[in-house]
């Protein structure tokens, strides 16, 4: 966790001090800023927002937006919604697994990629899709995956 991030995180926590009802808001902002929730930070949040640590842990582990482990520089996402599934998302997923060596939710040792699969993002007409760092690569085939991943260091 860099010094810059630490400052930002502390200011987020201060913003919600004493407001247990804002637990999710606080965690979302920290996740957005830091890309993951370190345990010490969750303790700070628990103390400042006056919620038991067990509750912070429950929320952080319940919602898949939160990551309890550090993430890679690039987030690789294969949509596994129903349309993409019917159009072959499983083959796309296998290809990404093969090329990165990562299973769903994992990050590689060099912190290059974090791989995630997930539900429908609403662009069903261009499925199956690979989304890297928010950029959509529609109408993908397993053959095209390698070229896309090469662009990300």
């Amino acid at each position, binding site marked *: 966790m860099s010094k810059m991030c630490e400052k930002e995180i502390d200011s987020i926590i201060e913003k919600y001090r004493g407001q247990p009802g804002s637990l999710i808001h606080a965690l979302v902002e920290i996740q957005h800023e830091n890309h993951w929730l370190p345990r010490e930070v969750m303790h700070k949040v628990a103390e400042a927002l006056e919620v*038991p640590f*067990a509750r912070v*842990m*429950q929320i952080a582990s*319940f919602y898949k937006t939160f990551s309890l482990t550090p993430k890679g520089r690039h987030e690789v996402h294969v949509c596994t919604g129903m349309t993409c599934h019917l159009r072959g998302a499983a083959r796309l997923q296998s290809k990404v697994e093969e090329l990165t060596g990562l299973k769903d939710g994992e990050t590689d040792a060099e912190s290059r990629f974090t791989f995630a699969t997930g539900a429908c993002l609403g662009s069903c007409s261009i499925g199956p899709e690979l989304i890297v760092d928010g950029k959509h690569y529609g109408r993908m085939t397993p053959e095209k995956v390698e070229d896309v991943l090469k662009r990300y260091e």
Partner: protein
Amino acid sequence: MSEIVLTIDDQEVKATAGMTVLQAAQQAGITIPTLCHHEKLEAFGGCRLCMVEVESRGWTSYVVSCLYPVAKDIVVRTRSEKVDKIRKVLVEELMAHAPDSPELVKLAEEYGADRNRFEREASFCIVCGLCVRYCNEVKQKNAVGFIDNGPLREIRFIPEVAARECWDCQECFALCPTSYAQAAYLLTEALAFPGQRKTAAPAAKTPARAARVIPIMPVPVTT
């Protein structure tokens, strides 16, 4: 408080407004099986074993009696073909986790449940939440909580809190229908804070209560 009259298993039962069907039944001496229910805790509605059939204004529905409020003239049946089937299958699902839990074994006998019907699951926690809720509502220590969601949901002791709170308490161990709580605590201690549990000086407290331990017996393997 106004009195409400309802029928449970063809018996007229007098209850007061605000009571649940379970409370009314218990008061009248009628047994409804429960698992996640505890008088010191807020009703949870998680195990669904206390489901009963309710007929109200011409509609029949299936509800959990631990939460369903008593109402005038409702007709409740605590046993029926459907209710019994629900309980049987629920017990079978739970026995895929903890086939030797005494409470589940007893229920299996009553409802004809087959402990081997479903695929065996790795964890013998049945996520009834008694330990989590007790620690939260009664002891207010939150040393153990739920994590994750869906079939991956589990209970987990928080080492930072458990190290100082659990040894002198242990009250959730006796509540656990499968002894998982006790096992989970001991495993957490062994992994996260071995030899570092905090406990009040022995002279100052009453002797440690022997936690009830259920012997682990080999389960006959049937295919």
